[in-house]
């Protein structure tokens, strides 16, 4: 017990960095996901081909290798960022690729009749998306977003390998210094669970909301 009191400030600091990483990378990933997901709907090869390549590269290679690549290889060609920035950027690009697919497929899932109605009311294309299509696509996206938020929390432990002292790395350092791996890793385990609680609660709510009263009662013919 004394020992836990001794190490808990370090673990708390680690937990704080983990949360900060999750929220920063998450917000950036959301921005990337929306931008890429929407841009991929533009019917031009000049736009869609590069974006498709980006999405496939980031989805189909190891996240760990992506992190190493950005942290160790880019500086060799003179591109150098702080570890935290690098970690956030890679997580954002990685999750952005997945989220862009969620955004794209949710938008494509909106009934074609909604486009027809919007065109028949003479709505220009941006207005059509902003007022009609995207508001209906968002409830479809939310459950997936919630899941990816949890995944993001877990994925932040990867950036411990580029010297960011988040929760996992602070734990590893404590073990090196004091020993007691059982107590320390158990504490880390519990802290991750606690950090996950808000996301779990959020997910429950999002899943309940998805669809809901917005679901059109369209007769089947």
């Amino acid at each position, binding site marked *: 017990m004394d020992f836990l009191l001794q190490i808990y400030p370090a673990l708390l600091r680690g937990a704080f960095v983990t949360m900060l990483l999750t929220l920063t990378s998450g917000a950036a990933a959301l921005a990337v996901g929306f931008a890429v997901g929407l841009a991929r709907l533009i019917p031009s090869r000049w736009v869609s081909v590069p974006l498709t390549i980006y999405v496939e590269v980031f989805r189909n290679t190891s996240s760990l290798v992506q992190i190493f690549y950005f942290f160790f290889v880019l500086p060799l060609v003179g591109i150098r960022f702080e570890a935290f920035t690098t970690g956030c950027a890679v997580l954002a690009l990685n999750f952005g690729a997945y989220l862009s697919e969620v955004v794209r497929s949710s938008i494509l899932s909106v*009934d074609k*009749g*909604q486009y*027809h*109605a919007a*065109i*028949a*009311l*003479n*709505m*220009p294309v941006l*207005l059509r998306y902003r*007022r*009609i299509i995207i*508001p*209906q696509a968002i409830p479809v996206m939310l459950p997936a977003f919630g899941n990816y938020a949890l995944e993001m929390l877990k994925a932040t432990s990867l950036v411990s390998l580029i010297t960011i002292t988040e929760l996992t790395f602070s734990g590893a350092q404590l073990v090196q210094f004091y020993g007691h791996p059982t107590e320390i890793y158990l504490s880390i385990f519990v802290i991750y669970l606690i950090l996950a609680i808000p996301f779990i609660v959020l997910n429950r709510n999002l899943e309940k909301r998805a669809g809901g*009263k*917005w*679901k*059109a*009662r*369209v*007769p089947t*013919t």
Partner: protein
Amino acid sequence: MGIAVIPKGGHVLDKFESPASELPAVEFVDVSKSFGALRVIDNLSLRIRRSERVSLIGPSGSGKTTILRLLMTLEKPSEGTIKVFGGALSAGGRGLRESEVAPLRAKIGMVFQQFNLFPHMTALANVMEAPVQVLRMPKPDAKALAESLLERVGLKEKGASYPSELSGGQQQRVAIARALAMKPQIMLFDEITSALDPEVIGEVLDVVHSLAHETKMAMLVVTHEMGFARDIADRVIFMEKGRIVEEGNPAKLFASPDNIRTKAFLNAVKR
């Protein structure tokens, strides 16, 4: 196939030439539409006068919906020219620039078989949406307009309901109010009662009949309800395989059609 006689070196008279005030509401000139190898509209020409009510009937797959969709710019013709009040929506099988098309499209409204109300907005918001967002009408004005239109379709007290809380007949009446809010001069109705339970079909058709009496909009009505097609129209067009087979006065066409294919179709739907 008609043979055009063009005087050598002479002036080619456009057979549709007329002064601006008499320009037809809708004009299809030699319009074709193909989906892949399937020719859905086959070299079709059609004129609809201002304030004229036209019913379009024909077997399933004959291209009725496609004609409405071409006019609403939801499809582009493969060949031919479509004009609205003399302005070209598409020419030579190509769509035109949005800046040219939008003012013409503003004159057309459409009501769909599946209603296509915006499910995330109340009935009132559905009707207000386009006047506010597209016409930039001040919100209080748009609200007053939407309320009066909902009243007109008999849904005065349903403004706060979401589409999912309304019956099919009520949803379709909101959809009519929504289209009217843009003050179209041409209204397109595509089988607006086909998705409805029999007991609510009447309430929707009554609304269309009252619009026909109280407004001067041109109407192009696609329907499988032959009684409605006859009663609403100044002219009935029977089409098959993307072509007009016969057209004429509703009483005449329904009572004694000239064409045997029209006769066969009318006999088949009567049963």
